């Protein structure tokens, strides 16, 4: 538990991805089984304890801590679990428990025995250990480690390709002893058996206008790039799974699509929310993401749909080495034969010249289209982002001129710079005077040289500061690019931008000539 607590503590404060990878790899190298496997499971969202820990903790505290002092402390610290971890008296007489001891004991314990176990462990741990224990048991680690990052750290530590780890991942269970034994070079590659496992996706390269000239139309097919999330749907050995692009199991959030999946197939497609045959805005899909469970009302109001791009397996047959056109024909035949609900096959767009494609692209204004995909007819299905096979041609971004309002310090390498910018558009204030209202926030799109100039601008034009945030004189205009803009009740402006970035810094442009909020609202698609 001590090493795990130290790891969590470091991860929680470490902003850089590479530094996180190093901390994880060092931990996997230095920690024995089964502790490291349980740590991996906890970090990658693979451990759940279905016990009412919040209630248990409240009861334990009542007997031990003065409620007035607890409330003063809770107000100061701002987080209940952290408050408990900090004010629990440190005893330090017995050695702290091992992570595996904790996980296995909680899994085996009767609910009535848990408070006693928990109190015993809290007594044996230091403040960091107690914090880690409570975070572990309540399932809220929040240290910025995704399943993908965990697997990447395994790859970095062991030297095995990430794709190999992803292939076996979903067939394995905590504490992953077979996985660690294989990665340490002490055992064979784990058998995946019949269970559905994630097969790494084939990804595309972005293509710009000029490079299109290098495309030979007869060697490619085109498809719309739909604005949802790429997924892999798998139904093998009587089990069904929906995986995200990074291999996270998102089946729980999309039972409607999972339910509809016929047996014996691995499919690649775009997950969308669709109503009456039309693709709903990405915002609607967002409502259903990041949930472990979904309500009946949500299933009704936000029905999910899978638009199929490719087929990887049919029965036991691995189709990935076949050319795209062959796989595509197999996909169409399979779809016709099974006619699964909530699934259709993505349309193939025929074209004979790039100019024809450009014209078609220019006229496409249907919601839900994010761009165009160009796929080489002969390409096998290859893991990762191989060169020369698939290209994506994204729609030109939307653009507004907005005024810098607030700047916040960055993290990690950027912690000495004001690098996160909130910008606004003009509207008429209550007194009739124009006022700025924030429309978005971005921390990228500019070069390191520009960042230095922006940082100096912020420091020289600060009018007020709140902790790490500075309010600046409304003087500097950003040309902000974004993919789309949606209505939002959570923002004062009533709009939320998708993927905003600083396209250009308009040092020359007077702030009063920046865009108005009405202009931004006019770009809302839903």
């Amino acid at each position, binding site marked *: 538990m001590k090493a795990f607590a*130290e790891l969590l503590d*470091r991860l*929680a*404060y*470490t*902003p850089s991805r590479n*530094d996180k990878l*190093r*901390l994880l790899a*060092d931990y996997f190298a230095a920690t024995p089984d089964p502790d490291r496997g349980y740590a991996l499971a906890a970090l990658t969202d693979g451990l759940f304890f279905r016990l009412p820990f919040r209630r248990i903790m409240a009861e334990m505290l009542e007997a031990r*801590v*003065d409620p*007035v*002092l*607890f409330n*003063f*402390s809770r107000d*100061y*610290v*701002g*987080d209940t679990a*952290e*408050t408990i971890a*900090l*004010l629990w*008296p*440190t005893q330090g007489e017995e050695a702290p428990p091992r992570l595996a001891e904790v996980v296995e004991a909680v899994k085996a314990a009767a609910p009535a025995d848990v408070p006693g176990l928990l109190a015993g462990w809290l007594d044996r741990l*230091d*403040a960091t250990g107690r914090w880690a224990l409570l975070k572990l048991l309540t399932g809220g680690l929040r240290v910025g480690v995704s399943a993908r990052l965990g697997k990447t750290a395994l790859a970095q530590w062991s030297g095995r390709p990430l794709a190999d780890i992803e292939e076996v991942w979903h067939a394995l269970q905590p504490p992953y002893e077979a996985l660690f034994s294989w990665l340490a070079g002490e055992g064979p590659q784990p058998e995946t058996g019949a269970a559905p496992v994630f097969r790494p996706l084939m990804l595309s390269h972005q293509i710009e206008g000029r490079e299109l000239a290098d495309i030979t139309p007869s060697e490619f097919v085109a498809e719309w790039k739909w604005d949802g999330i790429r997924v892999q749907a798998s139904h093998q050995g009587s089990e069904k799974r929906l995986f995200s692009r990074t291999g996270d199991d998102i089946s729980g959030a999309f039972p409607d699509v999972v339910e509809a999946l016929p047996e014996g197939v691995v499919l690649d497609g775009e997950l969308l929310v669709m109503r009456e045959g039309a693709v709903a805005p990405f915002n609607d899909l967002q409502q259903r993401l990041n949930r472990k469970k979904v309500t009946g009302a949500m299933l009704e109001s936000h029905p999910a749909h899978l638009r199929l791009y490719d087929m990887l397996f049919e029965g036991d047959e691995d189709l990935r080495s076949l050319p795209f056109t062959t796989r595509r024909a197999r996909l169409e035949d399979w779809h016709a034969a099974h006619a699964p609900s909530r699934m259709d096959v993505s349309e193939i767009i025929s074209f004979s010249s790039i100019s024809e494609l450009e014209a078609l692209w220019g006229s496409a204004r249907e919601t839900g289209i994010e761009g165009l995909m160009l796929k080489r007819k002969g390409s096998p299905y290859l893991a990762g982002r191989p060169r020369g096979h698939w290209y994506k041609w994204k729609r030109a971004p939307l653009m507004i001129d907005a005024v810098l309002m607030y700047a916040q*310090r960055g*993290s*990690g*390498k950027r*912690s*000495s710079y004001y690098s996160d910018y909130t910008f606004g558009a003009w509207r008429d204030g209550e007194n009739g005077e124009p006022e700025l209202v924030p429309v978005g926030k971005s921390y990228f799109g500019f070069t390191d040289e520009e960042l230095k100039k922006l940082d100096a601008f912020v420091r020289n034009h600060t009018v007020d500061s709140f*902790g*790490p945030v500075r309010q600046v004189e409304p003087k500097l205009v950003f040309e902000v690019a974004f993919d789309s803009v949606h209505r939002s009740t959570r923002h004062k402006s009533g709009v939320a931008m998708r993927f905003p970035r600083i396209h250009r810094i308009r040092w020359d442009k007077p702030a009063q000539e920046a865009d108005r909020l009405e202009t931004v609202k006019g770009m809302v698609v839903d």
Partner: protein
Amino acid sequence: MRPDKFDSWLKVDSKGLYCRPGRFHVDPHGAVGRAVITHGHSDHARPGHDAVLATNETLAVMETRLGELAPRRPQAAAYGEPVTIDDVTVTLFPAGHVLGSAQVLLEWKGARVVVSGDYKRSADPTCAAFELVPCDLFVTEATFALPVFQHGDASAEVAKLLKSVGQFPERAHVVGAYGLGKTQRVIALLRAAGYERPIYLHGALQACCNLYESFGVKLGPLEPATGAKREDLRGVIVLAPPSAIADRWSRRFPDPVTSFASGWMRVRARARQQGVELPLVISDHADWRELTETIEHSGAEEVWVTHGREDALLHHIERTGRRGRALALIGREDEDQ
């Protein structure tokens, strides 16, 4: 308990805590004619006083930091040596806070009052250890007066720093530390952990380190951080004032790990707010247990709380059957920076 027992000779006026029969202030926040100063931190040792009684070390700190505005008539007192000021006997005792820090025992007409200044009970090789002084009225600080503050072993925090230096040898570790006390304590802890390489200093920390060395506290090899080549700063430990660690000054270092040695680092929101990547919980102040135990062992029937989180400490004082009062002295910063 007799009400007003102490009010007849101690009061808070616009300059701070004032002793009537001795006609002096203790740690006044503005210039006065006569003062007793507990220690050299700038919110206790203000510029412009005329006569000042303090330890030799504290007077040296004031001389170094205040220059022309140092006390015009300094008077040094050794720990445990009684000094009479008018009708009051004043004796300084070690407070364990920083070099030269003292608690002030005031005796008048048979009553004993101890003004703690800032203090800590945990071990610190760079200053004399806290001495418990029995008294009737204890005037205490309350910087960390919440039960969530239980400062652990400072050497474990330094071990964490050294482990990180081993894990990220290509980066410089820039540790924020207050110039008087914290800096020297961190250095001493590093030396005690066997770290013998040069430690790099921000220019603002040099004078206090020289002062400590002149009083016999050995700090080992120290180098100025400014002017060193960027490439030579890979893998080194740099100490800097907290205001410099995540600001323009720190950009001279290769991919710096921002660290901060402070009791506040125990609270995550506080560490995150300051952009700290490696928080080190090292405090110069008493934690909750030290505060409450010191109050109990002092035998005081009445406790006044000068500054900090006084609500929680007053609740505890009253719950344990003592009389408590918040002085809410102005001019005290959120200490342990």
